Every structure is written in C-alpha cells, then in structure tokens.
C-alpha cells in the first residue's frame, strides 16, 4: 500500500477529484441558476446581478404561474398522462412479457422476432401520424397514451427479469391448482417488485417529459406541461401580464425559470430516492432475444 503514498499517485488522485468535482458542479449549476433566477426580483435580473444566488428575493413568479389557469391545467394534464399512461403501459407489458418469457411456448420465437424487428424498423413520423389520425384519436387524450403503450426496450427488460424466476415455483403452483393468471398475479408479480419499479419509472419519466406528441396530436386545452413550457420558450404563448413593456422580458425570465423548476421538481425530488431502480434497468435490460 506504499504505492498510494508516491508523489505521482497523490497528483493522480488530486486530478481525479478535481475533474469529478468539476463535473458534479457542471451537472448542478444549471439547476441552481434556474432556482436563483426564479426567486429573484425582475430588477435584479435586468441589471444582470443574479448569479447562483437569488437577488432581491421574491416569490412573485411562483405566485404568478400558480394564478395562471393554463399552467395548472397543463400540469394536471401531465399528471393524468403520467399515471394513466404508466398504468396502461405496465399492464400491457406484463401481459406480453410473461408469455414471452416462456421459451417453450409455441410461437414465442416468432413473437420475439416481431418485437425485435419493430425496434429497428419503424413506421416513421408520417405513417404514425396518419394512423393516429385515421383511428380518430387526434384531439383526444388517447393519442398521448395508446401509441406508446409498449416500449420494446422496457418489454425486453421485463422478459429478461421474468426468466430469472425459477420455474419449479410455477410447477408447484400448478399442482396446487393455480392457473396461469393466478401464477402471474400471486407468484410472478410479487417477486418482480424491483423490475416493475424500474420499468414503471422509465415509463413514467417518458410520459412526464413527452411534449412532441402533444404538439402534433392535441389541442391546447389538452397540452401537457412540457409543451406549455416549450410554447413559453418559443414565445407561442404568454404568461402573466407585465405591467410595463420594459419589464416584460425580465418578468418572463423569472417566470420561465419558475415553470422550468416546477415542471422538473417531481423528477429532481424523487430521483435521489429512486435512483437505484433507475440504474437497475440498464444492467438487466441487455437487448437480447
């Protein structure tokens, strides 16, 4: 262990820690800057006085967006899409993954090929749009939910997980008189908590962050909060009525920051606690037939 005390190794460790500290700060500073902007007074922002700490502390921008009905509406829409979408998605993926995890099942190989092929070749934007359109889903909330019910990566992750559950447990259950629905509900699912949490989280994050499908399929009262934010950024939609024209841009900056923070808050707050489930997926999800 004397090796660690050499000069070159000391310098090496210093280098590692410095680089890591820098990347840590680079990851965090954008968020800190947004929080600082959202809590600063318009005057401090216009004078370019805000860096990583709020100046002229005020909750004005949060009060404004909370009093803005469209923001609440969009936020509610996002919560709805996230919960219903994740629910549908999990149900569909479980129902497909369980039979597909049984390699002895006739037709299983062909179905796996069907799934994997669709990962590499897709319909493309226009055929997808025309499909949703001809199903009559345009301007309905289903357009946000149904087309994305199954993500093949998550499905394969679940299949791989189900395969790790020993089969003798099932055989014992069949002898005890359980059918396959009973096995799935009473044996497989209770053992799959971690995998379901992982897949559920990926799916929930997808629905929470989705905006493009809202843009092409929905009308404005159905917009999710991310599309609402995007429209503020592009100037398509305005938030808050600035009293003076000169104030307008700076007020917009603090309000934009407040929307950014509030719409990302659930992910930032929940992430540290659920982090292990997020990471688990990448390890068991190797894309393999």
């Amino acid at each position, binding site marked *: 262990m004397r090796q660690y005390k050499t000069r070159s190794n000391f310098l090496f460790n210093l280098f590692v820690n410095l680089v890591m500290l820098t*990347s840590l700060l680079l990851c965090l500073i954008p968020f800190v800057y947004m929080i600082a902007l959202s809590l600063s007074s318009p005057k401090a922002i216009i004078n370019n006085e805000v860096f990583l700490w709020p100046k002229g502390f005020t909750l004005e921008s949060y009060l404004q967006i909370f009093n803005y009905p469209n923001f609440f509406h969009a936020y509610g829409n996002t919560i709805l899409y996230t919960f219903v979408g994740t629910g549908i998605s999990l149900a569909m993926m479980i129902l497909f993954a369980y039979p597909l995890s049984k390699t002895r099942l006739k037709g299983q190989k062909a179905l796996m090929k069907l*799934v994997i092929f*669709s990962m590499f070749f897709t319909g493309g*934007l226009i*055929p997808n749009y025309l499909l949703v359109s001809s199903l009559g889903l345009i301007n309905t909330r289903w357009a946000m939910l149904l087309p994305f019910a199954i993500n093949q990566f998550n499905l394969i992750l679940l299949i791989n997980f189900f395969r790790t559950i020993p089969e003798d447990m099932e055989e014992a259950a069949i002898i005890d008189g359980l059918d396959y629905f009973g096995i799935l509900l009473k044996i497989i699912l209770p053992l799959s908590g971690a995998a379901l949490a992982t897949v559920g989280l990926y799916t929930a994050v997808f629905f929470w962050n989705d905006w493009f499908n809202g843009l092409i399929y929905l009308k404005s009262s159905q917009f999710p909060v991310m599309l609402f934010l995007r429209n503020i950024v592009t100037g398509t939609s305005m938030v808050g009525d600035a009293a003076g024209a000169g104030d307008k841009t700076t007020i917009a900056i603090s309000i934009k920051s407040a929307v950014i923070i509030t719409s990302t808050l659930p992910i930032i707050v929940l992430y540290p606690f659920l982090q292990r489930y997020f990471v688990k997926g990448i390890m068991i999800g190797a894309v393999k037939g």
Partner: protein
Amino acid sequence: MRKKRKDVNTITTKKYFARYWQLYLMLLLPLLYFLVFKYAPMIGNVLAFRRYRPGMGAWGTEWVGLTYFRRFFGDPAFWRAFRNTLILSLINLVINFPIPIIFAILVNEIRHLAFKRVVQTVSYMPRFISTVVVIAILGELLSPSSGIINILRERLFGLEAIYFMNDSKYFRMIYVLVDTWQYTGWTAIIYLAAITGIPSDLYEAATIDGANKAQQIMFVTIPSIMPTIMVMLILNVGRLLSLGFEKVLLMYTPDNSMVSDIIDTLVYRTGLANQNYSYATAIGLFSGLIGIVLVAGSNSLSKRLTGDGIY
C-alpha cells in the same frame, strides 16, 4: 398407422391448448397493439410510393412508383439535411463516444466512497430531464441579454454578447455539448460495470511490477474493457442516422437552419407542417432503410469481431 399419428397429434394439440390457452389469451391484446401501432405504420410506408389525397385514406389513392424518391434525390434541401445529419452525428460520435469511457475510468478511481456515490447519482440525473427543460435552461444560460455566459464573457473579458442559440456557427458545438451534459454519466454506467468486473489480481500484479495509477489504467483497465468499448462503438455506428430529433427541433431557428435542418426535421416540416405526406414518407422511409442497413452491418461486424451482437 397414419390415422393413428394424426389422432395423437390432435390430442396433444388439444391438450397443449387446454394447458396453455391462458398464456395466449394474455398476449392477445399486446399482440393486437403491436400489429396496430407498430406494424400498421410500417406498412403505411407504402404511402411513399402512392399519391396521398386528403380525406381519401392513409394509404393514398394510386401508385406512382418512385416519383417521390426521384423528387427528393433532386432536391437540394434533402441533400443539405442528409449532410447535416451525417456531420452532426459524426462530430457527436467523435466527441461523445470517448468521454463516458474516460468518465467511467475516473469515477472508478475515486477513493472516497461517499463522494463517488454522489458523483454517480448526480451525473445520471440529466438523462431523466425533459429535452424541453434542457433546451429552455440552455436558452437562459446563453441568452444574449441576461444569460450568465454572456454576462461572464462581458465582465471578465469585455467581450460582446453573442446570440449563441441563433448563430449557425455555434449550433453543432452546442448540440454536442448538451449531449455530453445529458448522457455522459448515464452511458458511463455500462463501462463502470465492465470495470468492476476486472479481477483485482491484475491490478495487484501491475502494482508489484511498479506500475503507477496512470500506467494501470493504460495497461490493465482499458485493455480489459476493450470488448465493451467495441460493442458500444459498433452500436453507435448503427445509430448514426438517429440523432436527437426533439432536441434539434427545439434548437431549430430559421437563422441556424443551414446546419440544424436534419433529415428528421425535414420530414417533420415537409410532412406535418406543409402536409406533403407522400413526399415526407419517402424521405423518412429512405433514411429508415439506411438505418436498418447500418444496424445490420454493424451487428454482423460486431459478431465477427467480438463474437457478440445485439440480436
């Protein structure tokens, strides 16, 4: 004899379904989903060869052969988008392929366990932030009037403010750096896992031979994770045409369109904004087919080189 065998067969098939019918019942709905939402649009690609008339169905009205393909092959806007896609992808690959490897190696060298855990947790997080939020934050950081970057440039160096988001000179650099910010930590997980799998006696032997840390990385760590690096490289080459469409769309402005118009945004604009459905489908199908060739090619290369592919 023949009759008997047939009987046996029907009985076992019957028995088979009597035993397994519930499994087939389960997969009925998801299978229907796949046929409707994944395979119908695939077949919908025939629209590239058919004329679309509004209100007369998603499949078009009559066959027109390769008309639309010929048209975009002669369209400078297509070639510009094609070139932009390739250039952006290649720059992204050259810069953002090695960075996660270096990052993983350095994370692995952190001695302080709590610090290591914090670095890992925080560096994975940007992967889960919405593209809209990332680009919105970027817009504020880089704003010419109030962005912290321009303020610092002015205060520290007396430089004039640059409208980064609107200037085609900076588009590619910004795109690539945002990718670095968002995906470095996440992609590094795979390399970290590979590094964790390296037997520790290799390092002990290197230490006894007098190798310092840098030498251990050069001669133990990197050679040991080389198979993982190769598979990841091949995977990335296979994905060369699929850039972050949403990110490009959010960063797209008329002023930077010379470099920011990629195939996907071209399809979006000609297809959904201008409703040239058949034309846009043809472009999309063409790039999809190139994508499939790249994936298949890189996969067989991977199998030949490493004995392992992705399917």
